[in-house]
């Protein structure tokens, strides 16, 4: 069990980075706590893999430090760190049996044979590989091979973290669930820290205790799946998490009111906070917290329905609110047709205001706590 800290970490693939854009990782300060499962979530090119390779020691960061329990390992080679990694494509030693594969990382570290045997047996049991121990690894399915790669990390008792780089990419959909369950149970039983890179928010949300959201080389938010859903700190988190993503509509201050489309909301004393920023303001709300109601001035946003998508038990309604579109997720019995004029009723607790990309920290009762 190790706590991993990243301090002022920056990385560039260029030898002499000049502008901020030359950096694949731009200033990361992050602590990976003991025994938790983390998901590293972000679109392609956001720096996830760079971060992972710096953690595992396959890459040395250009600037900053990586600390394992306070010990500086920044310049340590992958061989000398107690980190294991599972790659996107299953990596196994084809000429070895499953058992030999699992034993290999211990053999190279000169662990006594009896101890290797016990540990391999234990891990094989944990991963459901016991029946395959004597089989050649070559002929197995991608899912089984991926279990072997995971096992090669788990056999090392001193392993501080297992990094998984989109490990489910090449696995059959039918087998994905089983492997995901195994990952979860391994994490619970062995208390190993898993760091799981993915661009699939569902995978991140189901597997992780903490989600680290990355965009454009920066960590934009770290939090539990619920936190990210309810309180996105950054517009990107709003977009990226939740299906469909958060609604964002330009808004402006007018006296003590916030103008959103054709609606006005009274700001209960938060005008000062908002007036202080020079960045463009936008109003954000998740489709899940919008409902349809009668017109209630100061409470609802008027608009015209442009599209209705029926998803079976629920529907997504697109509403034009004067130049911008908002999506609402409503139950299937709500009647709405394209062209109809409606009023969107946002949950006051779920209304957020963003200045530029970042959320503005407003008191909880800013928009009133009544419904």
């Amino acid at each position: 069990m190790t706590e991993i800290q990243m301090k002022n970490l920056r990385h560039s693939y260029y030898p002499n980075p000049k502008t901020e854009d030359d950096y694949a990782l731009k200033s990361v300060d992050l602590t990976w706590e003991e025994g938790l499962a983390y998901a590293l979530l972000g679109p392609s090119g956001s720096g996830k893999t760079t971060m992972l390779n710096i953690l595992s020691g396959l890459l040395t960061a250009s600037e900053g430090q990586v600390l394992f329990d306070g010990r500086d390992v920044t310049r340590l080679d992958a061989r000398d760190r107690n980190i294991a990694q599972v790659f996107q494509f299953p990596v196994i030693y084809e000429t070895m049996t499953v058992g030999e594969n699992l034993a290999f990382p211990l053999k190279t570290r000169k662990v006594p044979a009896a101890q290797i045997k016990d540990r391999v047996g234990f891990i094989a049991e944990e991963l459901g590989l016991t029946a395959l121990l004597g089989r050649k690894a070559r002929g197995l399915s991608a899912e089984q091979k991926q279990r072997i790669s995971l096992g090669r990390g788990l056999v090392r008792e001193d392993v501080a973290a297992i990094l998984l780089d989109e490990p489910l990419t090449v696995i059959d959909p039918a087998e994905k669930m089983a492997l995901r369950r195994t990952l979860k149970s391994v994490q619970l039983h062995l208390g190993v820290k898993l760091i799981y890179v993915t661009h699939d928010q569902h995978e991140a949300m189901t597997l992780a205790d903490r989600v680290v959201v990355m965009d454009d080389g920066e960590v934009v938010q770290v939090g539990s799946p619920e936190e990210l859903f309810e309180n996105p700190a950054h517009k990107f988190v709003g977009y990226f998490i939740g299906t469909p993503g958060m609604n964002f509509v330009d808004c402006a201050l007018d006296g003590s009111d916030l103008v959103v489309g054709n609606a006005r909301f009274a700001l209960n004393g938060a005008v000062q906070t908002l007036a202080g920023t020079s960045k463009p303001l936008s109003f954000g709300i998740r489709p899940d917290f919008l409902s349809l109601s009668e017109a209630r001035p100061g409470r609802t946003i008027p608009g015209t329905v442009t599209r209705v998508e029926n998803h079976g038990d629920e529907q997504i309604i697109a509403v034009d609110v004067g130049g911008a579109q908002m999506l609402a997720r409503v139950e299937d019995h709500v009647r709405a047709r394209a062209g109809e004029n409606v009023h969107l009723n946002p949950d006051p607790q779920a209304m957020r205001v963003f200045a530029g990309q970042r959320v503005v920290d407003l008191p909880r009762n800013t928009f009133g706590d009544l419904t």
Partner: protein
Amino acid sequence: MSEINNRAWFLVLPVLVIVAFNAIIPMMTMVNYSVQDIFGPDNRYFVGLEWYKELLGDVELRNALRRQVTFSSLVLLIQVPLGILIALTLPQKGKSVAFCLIILGLPLLMPWNVVGVMWQIFARADIGLGGAAIAALGIDFNYSRDVLDAWFTIVVMDVWHWTSLIVLLAYSGLRAIDPAFYRAAQIDGASRWQVFRFVELPKLAGVLTIGIMLRLMDSLMIYSELVVLTGGGPGSSTSFLSQTLVKKAIGQFDLGPAASFSIIYFMIIVTLCFVFFRSITRAQEGE
């Protein structure tokens, strides 16, 4: 079966004709000659398997076969490991890659008898660079007189001519390995040798099988270089199957024995290659 279906057999006809002309008919001519004693076009006698019986007891053929097997094993044992070693040390990217590959590819482009002429001169102790260099070390080097010197020269020549083939094949095989395999091995704490043994070698198995088979077949057929370089000598110490065959067929005009020799030679190559191929592929499956 309907008539229309049967007509499809005509589509196979061109292939049958081609195969007949390029393999079966010449081969059958050989078989025909090999069972006769021929003095002239109108003066020949059927002798059955007599030539075969005689040849199988022939010391010259047996010695040639023994030398052939020694030579082929020797060059394979040198070229395969050396080729892999060179492939491993070649640069992986950059401009030097193309340069190295061209330099390595050059010997492969040279015609066999040109190689023979080159080495015939190169290895001469009086005017050849290589031979003179050895002589300068105080060694009495003469490939046309000394059996060991002759063997040394032909083995070095063959290594020079053909190692590049293994290098190129192994290099392409190495480039096809996903970097993740190296990273995983690094994380698992594998040594350089273990990376080679458990990552690189298994991935090279396919191309190496092809490389070894090509080299084996070619080395069993070696002829022109030796005719130019040693002429099979000194004595017949570097006479392999090809030279011995030509000596019989052209030199002595013994068409019957030469034909049966050819067929035996052919069977030897086919058998050796087949056995070798099977043992390689079986070893791989068994791994």
